[in-house]
């Protein structure tokens, strides 16, 4: 993966993780804050409920007290003390008074608990009231289940006693805890109050009300009610009304006990989680947007940073490739003082060192080459000079010791001297020839033609009777694209290789000349089946003046390599000891040179 992509991925991942972490943190904080606010709001609502409860209780007590002091109650108390009351006369009395005093429940009972008149159940005259007033009359209002003809209701009840004679009259009045009561509670947005009238152990949906009446999906509240009925303590439950989390509601259930500490009702305060869910969604949306923006920013930043960081690295990589290609004087610009700048500085120092080393090495090699040349030259020259010295000494000695034979000796010695001098000249001309290697004159040639020409020339030498039999094989690829080359120089190079191959096969063998073409490259291979070369010999084979032959100058393969190099090609050797050697020449088409060659040819033709 590219460094830029890595950098982008790291940046994006960092941004995403950061945004996710921040979003999670904010969400968690929000949730805790919301839950805390919910608890506070629920507590406030419970407190409000209790205040309203107490206020209404006082109001009910006041109204009941007013009724107890009213003329109707006094008349009833008097009738009670004058004997058995006429139920018919008071049948609608309680209802009328209750309507006037805006009470939902009102009963007048005698000392034995017998109902004289009832507002909520007028037909109940003569029956006994369940409330036990024998011990004491409660001063404050309290919760009480009121049985009604068709159901039961929870009431906030107050009791007052009216004693005008021996038989007391009790006034029991109250107001219903219903949706109107719930409506009087000032609920903050998102909150609602419900009330469950607890009549038995089993849950009855019709007894669960809110300000709008009966509660929909009341069955979901049942577990809360049952848990509270079992535990008798406040509980908090999260209710999922639908698959939409925004519909969830946290419900606090508060038990309401009656006079005998019996559970008579349950106050349920619902806190909608919609604000929280919507806020959470907003946070998530903001996080997603921030993440997206962060990723875009990461792309831009990573691009900028990568450009800042990778451009010097890329320059270094490019420079390294240049160095690898032999351009050792490559330098990179040092644009910063950081690690990358230090690296660039080191790179520049390295190339400078390499250049210095190479110069030093070249000089050393040059010195070595000169030494080798001197050694070789001395060696080459020493061989002919030694016979010359002997011949001249022989001549001097002959003139002093036997002048009569001097002439004969002089003649012999002269021929020897001439021969050795010719030998010296040949040696000198070879060195001179190497030093005067001409630049190739490119022209369009068919490589196979050059190879075939060399084959024909060498065939005469191969056919010499004193030579061990060597078979010459030509394996030429057809067709071959023409290339631009100097045919004379190629001929000379190939001839050198062929002669070396022949020298490598003193016992005879097979000489193979092979051509082939791969793409724009043309190949010529010269193979022998001779003794082969050692790896060390292969390494030094193209070094000038190096030879493995007793009488070689070591310039042949150097000349070959020079020719091939001047053609833009390469030469390599593959050899296996005892099985022969193959020299492989790789030549480019030199199309540009071919064009120049054609133009020069045309110009030449035109000039003629």
């Amino acid at each position, binding site marked *: 993966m590219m460094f830029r992509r890595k950098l982008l991925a790291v940046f994006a991942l960092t941004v995403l993780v950061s945004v996710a972490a921040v979003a999670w943190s904010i969400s968690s904080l929000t949730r805790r804050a919301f839950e805390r606010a919910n608890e506070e709001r629920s507590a406030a609502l419970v407190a409000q409920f209790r205040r309203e409860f107490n206020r209404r209780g006082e109001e009910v007590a006041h109204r009941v007290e007013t009724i107890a002091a009213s003329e109707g109650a006094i008349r009833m108390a008097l009738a009670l003390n004058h004997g058995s009351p006429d*139920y*018919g006369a008071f*049948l609608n009395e309680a209802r009328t008074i209750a309507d006037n005093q805006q009470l939902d429940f009102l009963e007048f009972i005698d000392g034995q608990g017998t109902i004289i008149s009832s507002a909520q*159940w*007028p*037909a109940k005259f003569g*029956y006994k009231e369940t409330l036990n007033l024998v011990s004491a009359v409660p001063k404050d209002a309290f919760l009480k289940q009121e049985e009604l*003809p*068709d159901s039961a209701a929870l009431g906030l009840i107050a009791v007052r006693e009216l004693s005008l004679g021996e038989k007391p009259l009790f006034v029991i009045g109250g107001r219903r805890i219903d949706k109107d009561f719930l409506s009087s509670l000032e609920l903050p947005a998102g909150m609602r109050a419900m009330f469950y009238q607890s009549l038995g152990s089993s849950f009855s949906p019709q007894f669960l009300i809110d300000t709008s009446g009966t509660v929909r999906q009341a069955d979901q509240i049942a577990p809360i009610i049952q848990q509270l009925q079992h535990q008798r303590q406040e509980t908090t439950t999260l209710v999922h009304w639908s698959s939409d989390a925004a519909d969830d509601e946290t419900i606090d259930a508060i038990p309401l006990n009656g006079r005998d500490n019996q559970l008579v009702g349950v106050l349920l305060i619902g806190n909608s989680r919609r604000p929280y869910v919507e806020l959470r969604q907003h946070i998530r949306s903001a996080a997603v947007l921030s993440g997206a923006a962060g990723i875009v920013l990461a792309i831009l930043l990573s691009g900028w940073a990568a450009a800042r960081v990778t451009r010097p690295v890329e320059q270094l990589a490019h420079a390294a490739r240049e160095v690898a290609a032999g351009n050792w004087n490559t330098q990179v610009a040092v644009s910063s003082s950081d690690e990358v700048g230090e690296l660039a500085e080191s790179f520049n120092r390295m190339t400078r060192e390499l250049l210095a080393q190479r110069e030093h090495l070249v000089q050393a090699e040059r010195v070595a080459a000169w030494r080798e040349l001197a050694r070789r030259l001395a060696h080459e020259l020493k061989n002919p000079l030694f016979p010359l010295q002997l011949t001249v000494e022989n001549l001097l000695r002959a003139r002093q010791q036997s002048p009569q034979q001097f002439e004969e000796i002089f003649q012999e010695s002269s021929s020897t001297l001439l021969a050795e001098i010719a030998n010296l000249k040949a040696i000198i001309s070879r060195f001179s020839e190497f030093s005067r290697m001409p630049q190739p004159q490119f022209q369009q040639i068919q490589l196979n033609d050059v190879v075939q020409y060399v084959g024909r020339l060498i065939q005469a030498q191969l056919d010499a009777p004193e030579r061990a039999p060597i078979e010459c094989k030509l394996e030429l690829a057809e067709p071959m694209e023409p290339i631009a080359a100097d045919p004379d120089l190629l001929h000379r190079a190939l001839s050198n290789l062929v002669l070396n191959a022949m020298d490598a096969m003193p016992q005879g063998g097979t000489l193979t000349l092979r051509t082939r073409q791969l793409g724009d490259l043309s190949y010529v291979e010269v193979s022998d089946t001779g003794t082969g070369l050692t790896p060390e010999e292969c390494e030094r084979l193209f070094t000038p003046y190096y030879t493995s032959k007793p009488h070689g100058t070591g310039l042949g393969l150097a000349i070959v390599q020079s020719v091939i190099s001047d053609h833009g090609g390469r030469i390599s050797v593959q050899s296996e000891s005892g099985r022969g050697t193959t020299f492989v020449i790789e030549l480019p088409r030199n199309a540009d040179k071919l064009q120049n060659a054609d133009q020069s040819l045309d110009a030449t033709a035109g000039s003629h």
Partner: protein
Amino acid sequence: MRLTGFPLLVASSLLCALSASASTRPHYGGTLHVEMRTAPTSLDPGDSNQVDGFEWRNLFGLMFDTLVLLDEQGRPEPALASSWQAEPGNQRWQFFLRRGVNFQDGAPVTPDAVAASLRKTNPTWKVLSEGEAVVIERDSPAPNLPAELTLPRNSIVRRAGGKISGSGPFAISRWDPGKKLSLAARDDYWNGRAFLDAIEIEMGKNFREQMISFDLGKTHVIEVAPEQTHRATAEGRHVESSAPVELVALVFRRDPQSPEDGRQRQALALSIDRELLNTVVLQGGGEPAGGLLPDWMSGYGFLFPASINLELARQVRSEIPHTTSWTLSYDSNDPTARVIAERIVLNARDAGLGMQVTSASSADVRIVRVPLISVDAQIALSELAAGLGLSQPKFASSSVDDLYGAENKLLQSQRVIPLLHLRRGYGVSNTVKNWRTARDGSWRLPNVWLAAENP
């Protein structure tokens, strides 16, 4: 002094006597103002949506005549029909019309007109005219046909041009359906002109509104609920009450489904304290009812026990292994019915029976109020059975034994439990003279006249 004083004393005494005599002597004129709860939208006796109730009977009696009337003892007496006769078997009857009687629109009351009127309300009857007589042929013996012809729906009317004309003592002068009916006395009424010039009837007024109007002197005659009769009287109002003419009963939706069901119904009937219902809830505005017909009508009402027997009720209840909890409904517009229903629930509970008051129309039991629309016991029982949704009783003769047998059979079906017989009460202004409420609660307005002062 003595000579001059005595003639003056005699003269002043005569003047006082004459003025007193003038204030108590009937005289023509005046408009009687009446208010009532019912708000009929039609005055056509043939309208099947109308109910044979007291209000219709009293209204129709002002505007329309029937062929026959019943006297206080339930005996038929001539009205539009001057005489009648039945052929053997009592299936074919001939009614001979009174001559010279005209409808309000001036058309004469002819046999054809009478036959057309009766055919409209009794499509199963074969009614035809024969000379001066109207002939009615029934599918089965109808010994009480004359009494049946006194029912409000059998009032004789002439329907022409979308208007209703009757031959009664008053003619319709203005009709605002459901709100107000104005009647004017007919000078040509065959039985003599009424003393009153006109009657104005305000409709759709509840008891409370009527009482307020009455106390403010805006109306002469109002209806008084049975449970308010005692109080109204105690507060100084003049209330005319009928004999008990309305049955309050529990009616089961279905016949007993099993012997246990029947015994449970029996236990319920025994557990109800009718006496307390009457004295407390109805303030003595009725009578406890053990039978369907009141004692004054049948003469044997005492044979059906009406008193509570809680001990026996509990015993019967204890013999039932599994009881059904019934639902009890009542007319939600009737507050007294509600109290009665709630009391019955309490009574039933005392006997160990489950019962719940409900407003659902499909309750197991409902409280109904059915008027005894005729003073003829058999007709009253038949109409009662029809009103209660019970099978029609069969009468072989007009004997009391047949009546008792039929009523007993209806009670034995255990579809109905009688509770109370209620009286009809009317508050009558002191300026209304010669007012007389019949035993069956019907008005006798033609002889009523108004004193000089305003209502």
